[in-house]
């Protein structure tokens, strides 16, 4: 194959001819292997069960494309899996659109799509259709990935950001800010002691356990860009409720907190890629918390706050020393302090 001779992706690989075919049949298909993709048709054809389905899409342009604990590939699969799961659905099928900059090393490409295949396996979803385009050098940054996906919503499940009720408890499935800090330190070439790794992970198994337990789950949301603070503000507005968080209960790794303090970031606004917020009735909160903690990716879960009927649309934080402050939506991007 040309690609192996050149060791980089060339424009030919996206031209639809022999090189494209070789890239697909020799590199992509063996990894993503499933009966739908193997059909080789223009799209995937599959049967759907009766009932409601969820459909979601997201594009990934992360820089750098490789970082501690993952790369753009598994991030793209986990991200869409999680978006579907946050609708209360069981993710089934994923599509993958690759936009590659000419000159991407073949080894990097191989590593990325291998991670995608592993992530899909781990989540139990199939990559059933896709597309590859190659653009001239400088017209994209290494690789951009779009993933879309569909999932089935079990009967009786009704999860929405508009369903938080006063009295509900807010559960966060683990430590916050891990992903954003891992990317930031990789991008800026900052070196710190300690293991600053992305938390990118599929949350669909955790969600399935919650939903099949019979517990009532009002809201599920993964606090990605904008972090826990912004996501809770969105839910508070959607549901027309207030929220109080307790600083002493917020799970955060010491080293992540240290980096945040040093650079002047508020971890409440830093992105997560493997965490969810679940808002559930108080009487079921401890049961749901136990279910989350039983999942591989939920060991550090905690109840971090409660929904109130005070000051609808606003989120407040009770600080560790007993003070109180507003947690507003993030404005722009977080910028480091300078003195």
């Amino acid at each position, binding site marked *: 194959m040309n690609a192996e001779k050149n060791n980089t992706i060339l424009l030919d690989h996206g031209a639809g001819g022999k090189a494209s075919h070789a890239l697909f049949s020799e590199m992509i298909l063996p990894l993503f292997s499933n009966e739908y993709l193997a059909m080789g048709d223009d799209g995937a054809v599959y049967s759907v069960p009766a009932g409601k389905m969820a459909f979601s899409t997201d594009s990934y342009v992360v820089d750098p494309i490789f970082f501690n604990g993952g790369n753009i590939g598994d991030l793209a699969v986990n991200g869409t899996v999680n978006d579907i799961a946050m609708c209360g659905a069981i993710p089934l099928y994923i599509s993958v659109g690759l936009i590659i900059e000419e000159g991407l090393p073949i080894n990097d490409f191989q590593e990325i799509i291998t991670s995608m295949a592993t992530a899909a396996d781990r989540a139990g979803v199939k990559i059933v259709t896709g597309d590859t385009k190659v653009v001239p050098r400088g017209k994209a940054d290494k690789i951009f990935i779009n993933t879309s996906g569909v999932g089935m919503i079990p009967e009786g499940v009704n999860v929405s950001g508009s369903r938080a009720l006063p009295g509900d408890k807010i559960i966060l499935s683990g430590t916050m800010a891990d992903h954003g800090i891992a990317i930031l330190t990789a991008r800026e070439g900052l070196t710190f002691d300690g293991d600053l790794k992305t938390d990118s992970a599929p949350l669909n198994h955790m969600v399935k356990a919650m939903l099949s337990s019979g517990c009532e789950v009002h809201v599920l949301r993964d606090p990605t860009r904008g972090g826990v603070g912004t996501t809770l503000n969105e839910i508070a507005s959607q549901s027309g409720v207030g929220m109080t968080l307790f600083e002493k209960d917020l799970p955060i790794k010491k080293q992540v907190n240290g980096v945040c303090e040093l650079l*002047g970031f*508020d971890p409440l606004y830093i992105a997560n890629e493997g965490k969810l917020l679940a808002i559930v009735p108080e009487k079921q909160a401890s049961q749901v918390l136990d279910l989350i903690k039983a999942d591989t990716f939920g060991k550090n879960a905690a109840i971090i706050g409660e929904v109130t009927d005070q000051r609808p649309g606003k989120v407040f934080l009770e*600080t560790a*020393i007993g*003070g109180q*402050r*507003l947690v507003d939506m993030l404005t722009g991007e977080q910028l480091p*302090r*300078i*003195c």
Partner: protein
Amino acid sequence: MGLTYLEKFRDPSLAKQLVATIHKESRHPLRLMEVCGTHTMAIFRHGIRNLLPETITLLSGPGCPVCVTAQKDIDAFVAVSRQPDVIVTTFGDLMRVPGSGTTLAGQKGAGADVRMVYSVFDAVTIARQNPDKQVVFCAVGFETTIPTIAAAVLMAAKEKVTNFSIYGANKLTPPALAALMTTKGVSIDGFILPGHVSVITGVDAYRSVFETHKVPSVITGFEPIDILHAVLMLVRQNESCVPALENAYPRAVRDSGNPKAREVMHQVFTVGDAAWRGIGLIKNSGMELKPDFKAFDAGDRFELNLIDVAEPKGCACGEILMGLKTPVACALYKKVCTPMTPVGPCMVSSEGACAAYYNYG
């Protein structure tokens, strides 16, 4: 498990005791100014305001370097970024501060090469890596930052990194306090003096201002216990009518400060006048490159043709920085001026009083 060193300064039970003592001992209304922007942020982040009795009003002072950077200096940074073959390097907070026209972030969007750095030394590295470009660092900071900028200039001089230069808008803290105390209408019953700046300046740097104006003054750190402790000390000084200059941050600040850092600073810079946004010119409150290092002055290197543009109408940043107004008293606050569309620098900097009120209010 025992508390870590840092956790001791966040201990909730100790905080409660301090708050209770402040409530017990504070009788007369007091207006206390936290001079430093990092204190402003810490006070909001820990929710300290609503723990204090009604007698105590906290005012945010002129200690956020971004907030006090004159509009003309921002215009200069923007003008430099428009020059051909130039890379402008800056600390992040400056990116979105509006000059009379656009911002550095706006320039970046329009195609200028503007890069955010975490250290001035990164700017020297970028200069080394790009010998065919002029690399300019926007030098904005107080005594905390100036020694590192001086060290970077020394390094560039030693290693002959001649394509590196700085556009200087550095400022000194004690002259600003002196200017504040002689401004009409300013009434302050106590200063919470900056921790980081004082690590460099030492306690001694404030003696002359203190002796002249006899305003109760306490240097402190940035943890909740540090801040509550300083408030209590200022309450006690006021209630006993015995003003003093005290150091509540002895774990970091010495009387003489850090002479080595000041030596480096004065090796490269000399004291000069500086324009403070919203306040105006303050004598001897700035730092200029000495003749030996003039070659590193970006102001000399480029022909910028700056024109004086009046600061935006209605923006009360100046009065806010002097404790004459609180952000909520500004006519633009939350109406025209928000963190998304900041009019004045106090709204854009993460350490600005207006941004703190808006975000944590």
